Each structure stands twice: as structure tokens, then as C-alpha cells.
């Protein structure tokens, strides 16, 4: 593993109306490592990911992928980066007009890397990795439970073997055993494929399992970064309070405006 930076954020700012969501986010994600982002609900974690992917245009700030400024890239270069990127959306975002197998292999089909016949088999294979039977492939997403949808979405995110993968709360809504299986899968993606992972999670056990590095976002800024296995005992009062889920501490619950 080199120390090369895969993603570099500097002074990232974003506001919606007069609500400031990101207020100067600085963050480094090293290539081939797994970064976990923690933060309260509504603190801007999903918005950060969407900015990196170019789905939301930030108001200010620098986003570099592989050392190149995203804002200065041509359309084709951006598309080339997205071709090598996988994203698990917080709510799954499965296409409900398509059966599960087409969802899973959507990217491979879109890039014409696979025929439709082969896609069915490939889908069965990836579904098995996320603990779903091949027969699930013929169902429509609306026929699945919430946890199953999450796993299909995960399968879709990793099916094309991307080298940067974003996971927005991959284990939320899964039972603890399935959560551990999915965590294992994410670790495998990083270790075996050499991918860079960028995950959001609220589950501390999961954060320690999947993360090499961790960062905490609060009030639109990164307030702490460090090794993930130190979570809960970092010496940073804010992070420790968050990791242990305590009511009393430097973070007070704020009423959202």
C-alpha cells in the first residue's frame, strides 16, 4: 500500500438556502485504505459523498481524486472516474422498473462488458456474496424487505469491481449477523481488490471492523481523524461521547432549524 491520496478534500463548503451544511471540510483518504466517517444525523455525511461524486455541486472548496482537481476535469474524465466508482445509496435507490438481476449488473450492461445472458449468472454470483439466493434475481425490488434491498444495493455497488467504493450506511437495517457478513464483504473488497472504501456508519462495532481510518464530522467540519480501532478511546471528548453513545458531553442535541 502506498501513501498516495485517493481523495483529498480542502475547504469544502455547501449550503442549502441559508442552512450551512458543510463549512470547510478537509479530509484525506489514502489509496487502498478504508475510511469511515462518523457524525450525527443531518451533519452532512451524505452530502459530502454526493459532492465527491459530482452529484451535488459544492459552493466552494477543492475536491481531488487521484491528485486531480475534479472541477477542472472534462466531462469524459469525470465519466471515466465514475466508471471505476461504486456507490451504495443510503436508501438503496434500486431501479424499481427492473428486476433485481438487472439492477445488480446494471453497470456491467451499461458499459457493455457483459451480455444479458451472462449478466444473469454474474448477478446470481454477486447476490450470493451478499447472502441472497439466486432466485431473488428474478424478483422486483418492491418485493424485497428493506434489509434485502440494502444487500441488493450493495451487490450493485460492488458488481463492477470498482476501485473506489462509497458506502452510505451499508449495515443500517440489517440484523447483527448479516451486518457482520456485510462488513466482512467490505473488508474483502478493500483487501482483495485493492479498492479504496469510503463508508458512513453509525454502528461503532462495524466502524471498527471495516475502517482503517476514521473521521468525525460535526457542524460541517471534520473535528477528528485517527485510526478506526481507537474509536471509543481516542482522547477526543466529542468522538468518545459519540462512540459510546452518551447523552452528556460536549455534543448537545440541537433542535434542527
Amino acid at each position, binding site marked *: 500500500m502506498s501513501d498516495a491520496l485517493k481523495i483529498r478534500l480542502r475547504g469544502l463548503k455547501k449550503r442549502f438556502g441559508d442552512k450551512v451544511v458543510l463549512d470547510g471540510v478537509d479530509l484525506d483518504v489514502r489509496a487502498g485504505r478504508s475510511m469511515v466517517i462518523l457524525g450525527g444525523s443531518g451533519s452532512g455525511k451524505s452530502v459530502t459523498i*454526493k459532492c465527491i*461524486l*459530482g*452529484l451535488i455541486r459544492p459552493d466552494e472548496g477543492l475536491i481531488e481524486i487521484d491528485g486531480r482537481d475534479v472541477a477542472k476535469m472534462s466531462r469524459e474524465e469525470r*465519466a471515466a472516474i*465514475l*466508471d471505476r*466508482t*461504486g*456507490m451504495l*445509496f*443510503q*436508501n438503496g*435507490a*434500486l*431501479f*424499481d*422498473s427492473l428486476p433485481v438481476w438487472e439492477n445488480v449488473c*446494471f*453497470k456491467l450492461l*451499461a*458499459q457493455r462488458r457483459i451480455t444479458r445472458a451472462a449478466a444473469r449468472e454474474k448477478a446470481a454470483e454477486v447476490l450470493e456474496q451478499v447472502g441472497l439466493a439466486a432466485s431473488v434475481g428474478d424478483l422486483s425490488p418492491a418485493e424485497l424487505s428493506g434489509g434485502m434491498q440494502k444487500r441488493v444495493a450493495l451487490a*450493485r455497488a460492488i458488481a463492477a469491481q470498482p476501485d473506489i467504493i462509497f458506502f452510505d450506511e451499508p449495515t443500517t437495517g440489517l440484523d447483527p449477523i448479516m451486518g457482520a457478513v456485510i462488513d466482512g464483504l467490505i473488508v474483502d473488497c478493500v483487501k482483495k481488490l485493492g479498492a479504496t472504501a469510503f463508508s458512513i456508519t453509525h454502528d461503532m462495532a462495524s466502524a471498527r471492523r471495516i475502517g482503517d481510518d476514521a473521521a468525525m464530522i460535526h457542524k460541517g467540519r471534520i473535528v477528528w481523524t485517527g485510526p478506526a480501532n481507537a474509536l471509543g478511546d481516542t482522547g477526543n471528548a466529542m468522538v468518545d461521547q459519540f462512540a459510546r453513545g452518551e447523552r452528556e458531553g460536549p455534543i448537545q442535541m440541537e433542535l434542527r432549524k
Partner: protein
Amino acid sequence: MTRFLDLLALIGRALISACRTLGDVALFALAGASHLVRPGFPFRQFGRHFVEIGYFSLPVVALTALFTGMVLALQSFTGFSRFNAESAIASVVVLSVTRELGPVLAGLMVAGRIGAAMAAEIGTMRVTDQIDALTTLSTDPMKYLVAPRLLAATLAMPLLVVVADILGVFGGFLIGTVKLGFVPQIYLARTFDVLQTMDVVSGLVKAAVFGFLIALMGTWCGYNSKGGAQGVGQATTRAVVASSILILALDYVITEAFFSR
């Protein structure tokens, strides 16, 4: 005086926002249509929408046209018999149906059926991140969602209107011969005597334009919807209202272009 200025500002603001919307829609249409000539057009999606628009709208459009033709014959009979001009009924029916009522009524029915469905489907995809997901899955949403719908509606509407024309004329024929006592051969002869190619062609051109407008409004409103189920509902309403009004307005413009000489 300030009142007057306020009013002016209000009008100005409305005008500017109208222009901006118009510009947005035009750019959206261009971006969508450009994918028709770029590589990788999604034929599978096109097929799905073509069947949905062309085939599954047939019953609605057919019934609308049939009853319109029937009513037209009946109404013109009650009117024309006062001037002993009953013999004009066949020509009135065929000209109104092919030039105006076929395309306009089919357009309005399809706007309600298809425009609404497009806005609802794409709007739901927007508010559930599915459109963003497309982007991350190496697929341009304009190419995958918008282009095939634009083409499908533009091609399917003329076909629907051919059916509407035939059934509308048939409706008039039915009432004319069964109820009003015309001799079938004479009714048909009158029908085809007055009918000219331009009448049908102008109707089909209208149909294609209306089809494009319906798909454009449906996809645009859906694409720009926000704010959950309520937002999708609003997008749907807006798509139907906008395409209906545009159909009626452009109907006038196209008629003027074809027949005002």
C-alpha cells in the same frame, strides 16, 4: 407611484422567470434529443415506452374518437337541417376529425395518461436518488430516461391519430347511416370527395409535435421535481396542465401555418 413600480417589478420578475423556464426547457429538450444521434441509444427502453404509449393508449384514444365522430354527426345534423344543408355532414365530420379533433383529443387523452405517468415515474426516481444512481452506474440519465421517451411519444402519436381519424369518421358514418338515414355509398363518397392529403398530413404533423411536447413536459417536470411524494404529485399535475395548454396553443399555430394561405 411606488405601487405602480411594485407592479412593474412584479410583472418583470414573472417575465424573467418565464424566460428562464423556457430556456431551461429548451436546453433540456436539446440535451435529450441530442442522444438520438449519439451512440448507445437505449432501444430496449424505447421499445417499452413505444408499446406503452402506442399500444396501451389505443382503447382510450379509439373510444374518444368514435364518440366524437358520432356526436359531431348528430350535432351538425340538428344545426344544418335548419338550412337544408344536411348533405354537408359527411364533409364536416371528416375535415374536423382529421384536421383538428383527432390530433387534439388524442393529444389531450395521451397527455393525461402518458404525460402524468412519465412525470410520476421520473419524479419518483428523482426523489429516491435513482437518477443519481444512474449517473454513478455509468449511464447518462438524459440518454436513458429522456431520449427514448421523447422519440417513442413523437413516433407513437401519429399512429394513434391514424386510428383516431378512422374511428372518428366511422362514428360519423354510423350515426349518418343508421340514425339520420344517409345512403352508405353516398356518405362515403362525400367523405372522400372533400378529403385532401393535406388534411391528414397536417393532423399527423400535429400529432408528432404533440407527442414530443407531452413527453418533454412529462420528463422535464419529473426530472425537476423535489420534496418527496408531494413534490411528485405537483410535478404530475404540472406536466398534464402544461402539455394540455401547449397542445391547444400549438394547435392554433400549426393550423395557421398549414391553412392560412
